């Protein structure tokens, strides 16, 4: 059984590795969590983003949520904001697609064009 004591160990470990005063002004990932998004599978998508961020120890990436983005038929959707770049909207996401987006776009800076809303509209 997990104990609250473990949290203190996590805190110790984290404090040694993170500069807590550092402003987090890096990449922001916003997942649509309206009724439409949740029904279409936004939760596993959000968790996949969180897992990748944890696995890769990406300290300047924030994953957060918003309501219905407005194109319910293309859910689950997420928007990726990188400082100084235009927002990229990804549609019809799955945890597999998320792993590619994190590797190629968030880490390496190349948006995965085939998963974007622009590509979906052309279909």
């Amino acid at each position, binding site marked *: 059984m997990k104990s609250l004591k473990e*949290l203190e160990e996590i805190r110790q470990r984290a404090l040694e590795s993170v500069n807590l005063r550092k402003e987090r002004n890096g990449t922001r990932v916003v997942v649509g*969590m309206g009724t439409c998004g949740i029904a279409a599978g936004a939760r596993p998508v959000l968790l996949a983003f969180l897992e990748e961020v944890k696995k890769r120890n990406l300290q300047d990436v924030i994953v957060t949520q918003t309501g219905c983005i407005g194109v319910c038929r293309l859910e689950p959707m997420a928007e990726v904001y990188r400082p100084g770049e235009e927002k990229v909207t990804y549609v019809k996401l799955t945890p597999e697609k998320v792993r590619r987006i994190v590797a190629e776009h968030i880490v390496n800076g190349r948006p995965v064009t085939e998963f974007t809303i622009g590509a979906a509209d052309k279909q």
Partner: protein
Amino acid sequence: MEDISLYILDLVQNSIAAAATLIEVSVIEDVQNDKLILSIKDNGQGMDSQTVKKVTDPFYTTRTTRKVGLGLALVEAAAQACGGGVYIFSQPGKGTEVKVEFKYNHIDRPPVGKIDETVAALVACNPSIDFVYTHITPVGRLRFDSREVRQRIGDLRIDHPEVVEWIREYIREGIDEISGGGGV
């Protein structure tokens, strides 16, 4: 929605939109009385009685971007299909409680689902809101309170990936234990 944990994720969005700072969710598996009761209680802005009457109508929403709001309408349909219903108690300035009842053994009653994923997602995305989750079964009781977590982690953020992972495992293990091993 496939299961109750997804309804929770959806209904809590209403509490977040109502600017709640504390959201208490509970699932009570009252097998003896053939009831599964879900409750979501917040300290958000609340609603007047006129509004409460309208909120399960899919064509009522406070959003200005479009004219439908399906969250409460969906859960009400699901509950009514299982011999239950939705009951809303709200007071402007105080908060809202949404209570959803299902017949526990009804064939269409959605499974509980992955509560650990719902709570982890909520905490990770809303680090400034406190969440309490209580789950009661005939076997026992699980209680999670993000305020207790905050006390232990001090100046570390509650949305730190390792803390979120701990929360997820704490809830998963806790529910496993009171479910007698079998999934619900």
